[in-house]
């Protein structure tokens, strides 16, 4: 297989396999993207006591259910990695399928949540709190969508026993999406 690959993907100066190095680089930049956004949110939140009123309208239980869904999807994703390590592509594909299911469930719950909020008048332009709310959760949801799509391709490959190392790569990305939500949950739902 190696003969068909560009040299850049077959050598590694850091001792880390190139795909994994690449995904860590992506995540390092994601840390700055999400970190910057959430950092600015926290600063404004502290500077604006009146946001507490707006924040009290977020629906904590929906956020909690979604936290559970994402944690569980992370668990199935890491099990997929474990299966891939053992060379069991079919099992890995099945577990990635469960992870995608988790992503879809997350998105459906989020759609329901946003619909009720938008109908009630809490739109992205309602005030600055809601702007941050939709921007942060929306950016996160885009990552969920992207991750689920890529995971679909990788699951198909894994099912055929190909490119099993990619299961770990998408896993690292997916757990990061989970970690972002771990912080979004208390920031947007719990802190009243």
């Amino acid at each position: 297989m190696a003969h068909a690959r560009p040299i850049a993907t077959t050598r590694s100066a850091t001792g880390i396999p190139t795909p994994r190095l690449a995904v860590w680089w992506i995540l390092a930049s994601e840390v700055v993207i999400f970190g910057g956004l959430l950092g600015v949110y926290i600063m404004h939140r502290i500077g604006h006591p009146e946001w507490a009123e707006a924040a009290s309208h977020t629906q904590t239980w929906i956020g909690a259910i979604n936290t559970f869904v994402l944690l569980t999807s992370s668990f199935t994703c890491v099990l997929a990695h474990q299966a891939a390590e053992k060379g069991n592509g079919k099992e890995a594909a099945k577990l990635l399928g469960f992870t995608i299911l988790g992503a879809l469930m997350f998105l459906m719950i989020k759609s329901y949540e946003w619909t009720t909020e938008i109908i009630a008048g809490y739109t992205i332009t309602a005030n600055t709190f809601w702007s941050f709310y939709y921007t942060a959760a929306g950016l996160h949801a885009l990552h969920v969508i992207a991750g689920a799509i890529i995971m679909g391709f990788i699951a198909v490959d894994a099912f055929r026993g190909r490119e099993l190392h990619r299961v770990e790569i998408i896993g690292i990305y997916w757990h990061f999406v989970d970690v972002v939500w771990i912080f979004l949950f208390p920031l947007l739902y719990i802190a009243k």
Partner: protein
Amino acid sequence: MSENNEHNGEHGHDDGHHVNYFKIYLLLLVLFIISVVGPEVGEFTGLRWITLITAFGIAVVKARLVVNNFMHLAWEKRIMKWMLASSVLLMFLMVAGISPDVMNHEGNNWENVAAKAEVERGLAYAAGYSSDEAEDEGEAEVVVAAGFSAATSYGQICATCHGAAGAGDGIAGAALDPPPANFTDPAFWADPARDRDRVITVIRDGAVAVGGSALMAPWGALYTEEQLEQVADYVMSFRPDA
């Protein structure tokens, strides 16, 4: 090793450790429950530090568990940890650099007039809200308050059948029989019984409440009494003689 097919001779980082993923998952769930229940306790007892520790302290612990055990950063080469750490450091640097300007609204030689005005406006609104609505409306109405506009609500809900300009020509209304009311038609308003109270009743309880078509559904659950009146006024603004 799964990576062997493209990294010959190089072994993955997973050789030396065996994580019990299920145990980590259970631990995460326990922490998750604490992070939901803790802040409730904090609010109930009025002890803010309980909320802060259970919400944000636990979030850090959960994130660490995921990063170390699921992403395997604990077994990753050291250079990767430094790389990620520098990202986190840059983020904190940015926050530290601008936080005095954002979190304070005045300093020695400056004053952020706009921010101060917004805080004042927001707090006044929140205070008015809690004394008026919380008392007589109860929890159920809490969702409907900030940023309400009758025009926006009409556009999102009513316009699908009654049309954006109230002419009864909304997309979803085309197939209905009887057709949706045309608020711009003088004949519609000719009936003296069609006053403001009746419009409010129809929006709240549906047209069935006044002997009309069941196709005009009740929307009362979406609005407070005050908002109902605003939507009714908006509907009546389509009257040709209004």
